[in-house]
């Protein structure tokens, strides 16, 4: 079957604008994760969904970041009032459930804030 997909692949936006990044997990995967990868760094955890609910959002850096997964499948990461420091690759991953199932990653969305 298809893997995790993310759209758009690249997004350029101006400082202060609002952006939405989309993640389509592998069909049937109940767990979904968002990570942020700054240039030259390893990915950092943002938020984890189990089904429709955010089971752990402790990685979100501030209240400009918000994510939803209304039907337990597709997820959208929303960033308000973007700042240049938000520029990074945003990775999404899904898994069949909680540990120890493997997380399968998407190709990421590269966000550039000018």
């Amino acid at each position: 079957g298809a893997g995790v997909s993310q759209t758009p692949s690249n997004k350029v936006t101006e400082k202060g604008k609002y952006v939405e990044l989309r993640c389509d997990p592998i069909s049937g995967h109940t767990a979904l994760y968002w990570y942020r990868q700054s240039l030259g760094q390893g990915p950092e955890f943002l938020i984890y969904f189990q089904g429709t609910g955010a089971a752990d959002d402790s990685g979100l850096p501030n209240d400009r970041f918000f994510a939803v997964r209304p039907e337990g499948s597709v997820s959208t990461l929303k960033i308000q009032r973007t700042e240049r420091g938000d520029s990074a690759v945003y990775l999404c991953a899904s898994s069949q459930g909680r540990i120890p199932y493997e997380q399968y990653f998407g190709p990421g969305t590269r966000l550039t804030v000018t």
Partner: protein
Amino acid sequence: AQTVTQSQPEMSVQEAETVTLSCTYDTSESDYYLFWYKQPPSRQMILVIRQEAYKQQNATENRFSVNFQKAAKSFSLKISDSQLGDAAMYFCAYRSHYLSPKETSGSRLTFGEGTQLTVNP
């Protein structure tokens, strides 16, 4: 909180030779999982190998093997018979086995800074 450290920002190896990538981690937990992920320029993270902390035997996957030293909190990756397609960024990652009462913790991956591997023909 757990931390993962990769002290080699860059490594290079000749094709068909063997290379070892280092990783150390810090945790107070006794049960956890360790991973090596590969990230080529396409950005897609690919799982290379996984090790359960409760297993003493080192994991192997074809040309990839690990040296897991639990007491030393060390988890190195050995790539044998290196191929051009092995060139990529490699990340070491930690995942707790512990589940909180809400079963929310223990799911996230904590990554190291990465090691860029170059394979020379």
